[in-house]
């Protein structure tokens, strides 16, 4: 039986995995991927089946746990934002060598335009690098359908499959036709080829040529994939390759009636034979893809032997930011003005009365009090430096705080403060949230402890993963013990409530520990105002 549901791209995929017999969801929250696992956590079938959906400490632990479940023959996915795949890169790339047993989907949600991210990296490069197949849904229906298809592909080839999302699919709702029944889960079973799972050189050397062989077979499969298609077209001046959601923008421009032959790509490796067919029939090629110019770069090569190839590298489409129907229209209008007329001009934003409205820390947020006390403490020092991290408190860079000097990646506050202290910087202060600390801060703290580096590390603990909407944080209630266990000197390990009334105490504590020439940790605590409100409502009910 089928029914129609209104679902976010993230939710459509999540429901697709449940209906395809999922046994385990593994993830660390990250925009725009978070809603996939939140959907599993709230789904009645998933609850009844006790499908694993507890948050992991980071993307690497999530990826490895999912691989462990796959080893035991069950279907699992691991989901993360694009930069999370950097954290999970080690197990991801090596999972191509071990392969999968039960179907294994690795979801990376890219964020072109950097709505909530630090870069625009394109996850398709990772699949290519690891020699793994990738799926790139172009709409919510494909996001649903690709869950079952992806598991089957994964089990057929005994390989993990990357599923690439982008913000505009993850966070866009559409009507999706879904199954009303969930398929049974796989039974526990072990891989036929046990040697593949022990990546000692003797086994890896035997495995690698096989992986390369498989890749060629995957390319053949991509040529007949239900998600890839080549249309005939009537105007042979231009052949268009459109991947993922770029395909929708192309259809928007032509209202579904593009006169040029179109190769839609939603399954990788790139189906070379289809590209060749398109190329043979047309005078020039245009590649429209969301994110970095992955396909275009592959086709162009370094020697640029294909001069009539248009896209982002050739300048017809913008190199940065997400695609829009307007960018696609402008591009085609510039190449074939007789087919598409240029856009009519639209009014500008009246800048004199429309001001930017940047995001800000909530009123009643403990991070605010930490920053107030910290910036006032720092005024006493000639050249203080504060190394920030990833989370709501990153907003401390903005006015009125202007409190942090660097933000790079999860956990980098502690290790960069340590490196700066090694260089002679004082004060070198790190500020990191609780969830980010257990994600990637603990190992860096161990380095600082082992050398008694002259740093102050503030863990601003709000008992949650705030920026992504308040998911459970893995270190809640354990941070003091974790720091003790790693070996922070108890005389220089403190806890304080980050409340306005503690402003003077916080300042005094910060100063004392900045002046101590060694590694100190202050855990400032206060529940996130957003989750506190939610909890208050639940109690009222």
């Amino acid at each position, binding site marked *: 039986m089928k029914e129609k549901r209104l679902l976010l791209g993230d939710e459509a995929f999540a429901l697709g995995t449940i209906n395809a017999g999922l046994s385990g969801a593994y993830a660390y929250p990250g925009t725009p991927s978070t809603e996939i696992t939140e959907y599993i956590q709230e789904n009645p079938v998933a609850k009844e089946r006790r499908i694993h959906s507890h948050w992991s400490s980071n993307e690497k632990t999530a990826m490895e746990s999912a691989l462990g479940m796959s080893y035991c023959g069950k279907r699992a996915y691991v989901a993360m934002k694009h930069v999370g795949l950097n954290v999970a890169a080690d197990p991801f790339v090596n999972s191509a060598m071990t392969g999968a047993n039960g179907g294994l989907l690795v979801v990376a949600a890219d964020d072109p335009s950097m709505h909530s991210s630090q870069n625009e990296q394109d996850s398709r490069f990772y699949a290519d690098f690891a020699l793994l197949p990738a799926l790139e849904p172009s709409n919510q229906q494909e996001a649903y359908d690709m869950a079952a298809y992806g598991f089957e592909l994964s089990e057929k080839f005994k390989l993990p499959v990357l599923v690439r999302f982008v913000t505009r699919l993850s966070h866009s*709702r559409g009507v999706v036709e879904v199954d009303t029944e969930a398929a049974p889960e796989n039974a526990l079973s072990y891989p036929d080829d046990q040697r593949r799972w022990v990546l000692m050189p003797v086994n890896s050397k035997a495995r690698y040529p096989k992986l390369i062989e498989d890749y060629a077979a995957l390319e053949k499969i991509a040529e007949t994939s239900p998600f890839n298609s080549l249309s005939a077209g009537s105007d042979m001046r231009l052949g268009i390759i459109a991947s993922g959601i770029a395909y929708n923008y192309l259809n928007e421009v032509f209202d579904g009636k593009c006169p040029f032959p179109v190769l839609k790509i939603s399954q990788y490796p790139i189906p070379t034979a289809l590209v060749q067919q398109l190329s043979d029939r047309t005078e020039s090629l245009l590649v429209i893809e969301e994110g970095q110019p992955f396909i275009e770069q592959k086709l162009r090569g370094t020697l640029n032997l294909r001069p009539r190839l248009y896209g982002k590298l050739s300048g017809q489409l913008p190199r940065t930011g997400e695609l829009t129907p307007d960018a696609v229209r402008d591009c085609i209008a510039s190449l074939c003005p007789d087919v598409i007329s240029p856009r009519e001009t639209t009014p500008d934003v009246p800048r004199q009365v429309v*001001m930017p409205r940047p995001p*800000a820390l909530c009123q009643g947020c403990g991070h605010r009090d930490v920053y107030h006390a910290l910036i006032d403490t720092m005024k006493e020092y000639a050249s203080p430096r504060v190394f920030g991290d990833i989370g709501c408190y990153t907003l401390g860079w903005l006015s009125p705080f202007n409190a942090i000097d660097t933000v790079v990646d999860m956990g980098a506050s502690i290790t960069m403060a340590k490196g700066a202290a090694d260089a002679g910087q004082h004060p070198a202060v790190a500020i990191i949230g609780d969830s980010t600390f257990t994600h990637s801060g603990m190992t860096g703290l161990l380095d600082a402890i082992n050398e008694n580096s002259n740093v102050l590390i503030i863990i601003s603990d709000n008992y949650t993963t705030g920026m992504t909407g308040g998911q459970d944080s893995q270190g809640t209630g354990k941070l003091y013990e974790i720091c003790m266990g790693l070996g922070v000197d108890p005389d220089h390990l403190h806890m304080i409530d980050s409340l306005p009334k503690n402003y003077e105490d916080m300042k005094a504590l910060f100063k004392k520990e900045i002046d101590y020439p060694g590694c100190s940790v202050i855990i400032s605590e206060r529940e996130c105002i957003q989750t506190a409100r939610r909890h208050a409502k639940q109690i009222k009910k």
Partner: protein
Amino acid sequence: MKTDIILAGVGGQGILSIATILGAAALEAGLFLKQAEVHGMSQRGGDVQSNLRISSNPVHSDLIPLGGADIIVSLEPMEALRYLPYLKPEGWIVTSTLPFKNIPNYPDEEALMAELHKCKHLVAFDMDAVAKEVGSVRASNMVLLGAASPYIDIPQNDIEKAIAKIFGAKGEKIVEMNIAAFRAGKAKA
């Protein structure tokens, strides 16, 4: 039929529940739709918007092209103007006139209103005030939805049914209040 709507406001104001209700109503009416929104960092008191496209034919792009929106629906006057480049020349702006001032350089209100009134097709009033009259300020987004509803091609009955469905879990009183707010907004449009 096809209606392209830009929903605008400030993070936390409740524009996404308008999108949820229109989405449910469109699904009920057997229409196609796509609704894009942005979560994450921008929700912390920053400007937020959602693109909602409802049509009797399949919708291709999740994003509305420049100059393509039939209507801008906003809970805040300055936010309504932020998306002016997306409005069709004959399109409508339906907005609350109550400013949400969480930035130090909020524009002069008179200049802002003057700019807003340059729009040919405008429905602008204080949605909070109307919501207060029928029950609670918290229903101001339903007043806005009511004020916008004459310009949205979905059977009005389906919208009211969707309001009842979405607020159903919160009890009959809340449903009634929200429907009253919706009707009060519609009466002002």
